[in-house]
Every structure is written in structure tokens, then in C-alpha cells.
């Protein structure tokens, strides 16, 4: 019974309230860092981590925050976790940091994280917040992976840097403008499937 609620929360984050395809939040990174599958995936992982830790922290201290100052406190918690993740990765995992360093600092400004803090974590207990963060983060990871897979195959003819074909069929797809096409098209397809089959 209880575990059903949690799986429901995770499903909700991935499908019903997918940050990018359904809520249309954090579209900036979905365009800026999705020009290769590796970039999109790493960004998704970084967001997953920050989303979960921020959700947990906020649900833990939500009773000690005056509603009038909740937004600055949320911002502090988000930037705090991002800074901690950034510093500890640079110190303890310099190799991984070389790959992820570019992305982690960007997360401070993500609307999706602030939105979940405000809509969910500030009103719920720790465990549901944890699973909501997991669901939302996985949904973001899922959306970014699909977009970046789409863009990399079309724009660069490769998957994860491995060449499938030796040409660049649609170079525009890995340029910034291609991001708009990719996000728009995939969002349309996603919602078409959703209404057509009334699933997801």
C-alpha cells in the first residue's frame, strides 16, 4: 500500500508531470546542453542528485521556515547543495569533475528544482519528498536523454560519440537553433501519444 504511493510518485515525475514535456519548466538546459547524449545524460544525473537532496532538506526544515521568506531560503538550500556537490566533486573525484563540472554550477538557476521545492517538498514529509525528487529527477534525466539522443543522431550521426554514419546529416540539430526544433517536436510527439492513447 505504502510502496504503491511511492511508485506512483516516481511514475508521476517521469510521465504525468514530466518537467520538460508536461510542465515545460527548465527548458533552458533542455536546449543548451542536449547536443550530445553524453552531455544530456550527465546533466540529468546532476539534476537528479540536486533535486533529491534539496527536496529532503526542505521537507526536513519546512516547519522552521516562515512562509514569507520561504523563497530566499529555498534558493539558499539549492545553491548550498550545488556548491557542496561542486566542491566535493572537485576534491574527491577530479576525473569525474572534469566531465561534470560544467553542468553542476548551472543547476542553481533551474526553475524545475525551485518549483518542486515550492509545490511538493514544502508541504510533505521526508519520504514522499524523497520519492518525488527521485521521480522528478528521473523524468528530467529521461527527457534530456531522449532529446539529446535525437539531436546527436540527427546532427552528428553518432551515439555517445561513436560514429554511426560518417556524415553529419542535419548539422543544425546540434546547433542552438536545433534545440528548439528538437524540444518542440518531441514535446508534440509526447503529448500526441498521450492524448491519442490516453496513456503515459
Amino acid at each position: 500500500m505504502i510502496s504503491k504511493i511511492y511508485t506512483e510518485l516516481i511514475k508521476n515525475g517521469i510521465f504525468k508531470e514530466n518537467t520538460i514535456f508536461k510542465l515545460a519548466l527548465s527548458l533552458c538546459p533542455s536546449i543548451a546542453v542536449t547536443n550530445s547524449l553524453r552531455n544530456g545524460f550527465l546533466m540529468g544525473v546532476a539534476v537528479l542528485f540536486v533535486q533529491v537532496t534539496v527536496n529532503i532538506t526542505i521537507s526536513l526544515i519546512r516547519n522552521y521556515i516562515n512562509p514569507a521568506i520561504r523563497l530566499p531560503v529555498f534558493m539558499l538550500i539549492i545553491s548550498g547543495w550545488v556548491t557542496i556537490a561542486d566542491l566535493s566533486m572537485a576534491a574527491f573525484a577530479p576525473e569525474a569533475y572534469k566531465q561534470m563540472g560544467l553542468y553542476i554550477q548551472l543547476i542553481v538557476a533551474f526553475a524545475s528544482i525551485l518549483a518542486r521545492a515550492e509545490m511538493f517538498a514544502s508541504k510533505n514529509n521526508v519520504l514522499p519528498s524523497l520519492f518525488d525528487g527521485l521521480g522528478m529527477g528521473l523524468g528530467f534525466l529521461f527527457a534530456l536523454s531522449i532529446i539529446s539522443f535525437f539531436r546527436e543522431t540527427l546532427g552528428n550521426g553518432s551515439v555517445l560519440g561513436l560514429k554511426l554514419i560518417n556524415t553529419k546529416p542535419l548539422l543544425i540539430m546540434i546547433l542552438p537553433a536545433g534545440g528548439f526544433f528538437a524540444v518542440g517536436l518531441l514535446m508534440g510527439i509526447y503529448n500526441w501519444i498521450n492524448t491519442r492513447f490516453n496513456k503515459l
Partner: protein
Amino acid sequence: MQKSEMILQNMRDILKITLNLLIIYIIGGLIIAFVYSKTSPLIYKNKVESKKMALRKLLPEADSIEKTGSWKIHDKEADYYSAKKDGEIIGYIIESYGKGYSGYIEVLVSVDKEMKIKNISILSHTETPGLGDEITKDYFLKQFISKDTNHLITVKNTTDEYIQAISGATISSRAVTEDAVKSAIEFLKNKLKG
């Protein structure tokens, strides 16, 4: 009477909220300060270590690499090193910066005694992921090997003689080739001549 009570209540609220915010921010600040104090020495060590590794990788045949001096480019301090083998200078390594598309690109180049490039590596950059960051890829950096300053020119079509720019990242390619590497080697040339 009622009005003054309301004002008092208001003041109390403001004070409470301010105190609340202050406490949370102090706690947050302390946590971050603690993490920073624990990690920053490690981060510094990692940086020094990775620079040493990078230097060694650039001229693996050298048995000692010593700092010879420093120079300035884009108002940044950069070092150059001379590499010796059995007490004899076999080449130089110079650090340089190029102004890229979205920030500075830090480059390390090694040259032999004839000022031809032996090896090159990008130490740090903030170029666009997926486009500008192709400057760190082998196929781009390989082009530099055994080029001299006269051939450090970026062109857009296929070339063996010059440096072919990465499609979609001409500014980043030019920053590495002409801004960073070329000026560094020209500086070395002038320095060693005089």
C-alpha cells in the same frame, strides 16, 4: 490605541522573519564554509598534480622540467618551462591563454628547439558543450604537431598545411590556434633570441 498595537505587532513580525532568515543563512553559510575549508586544499592539490601530469605528458622524453619564467597574455600570468634530458635542453613548454567564445581557454604547448610544436593540450576551457569543446578532441589537436608559427592559421576547408577549424566552432578553434598557441610561440622565439 488599536493602531499602535497593530504597528507593534507588525514590528514583531518583521523582527521574527528577519531573525528566521538570519539564522538559516548563518547556518547555511557555516556549512558551506566548513565544506570549503575541507575541500579547498584537496582541490588545490589536484590542480597542481594535474598540471604536473600534463607537463610530463607533453614532453615524456624529458627527465626534468623546470620553470624558467613567466609571461603575460590577456592580463593573465602564464609560465614557461624548459625541458632537459641528460642536462641538455631538448625543448620548451609554455602555458598560454586564448580568448574563446565564452571565456578563456588555457593551453599548454611543448616545442622542440626549432620551435616546432611537439604536443599540445587544453588544460581548461568554458566553451559550449558539444561544439566548442571539440577543441579538446584528438582530431583537432593532432593537427598542431610539428607545425611552426607560419602555419598556425585556421582555415575552414580541409588542409594539411594549416589548422582546419572545427565546423560550428570557428571562434574556439581560432582562439586556440592564433590567440593562444601562435602568440605563445612567438613570445618564446623573441625571448630566446634576445
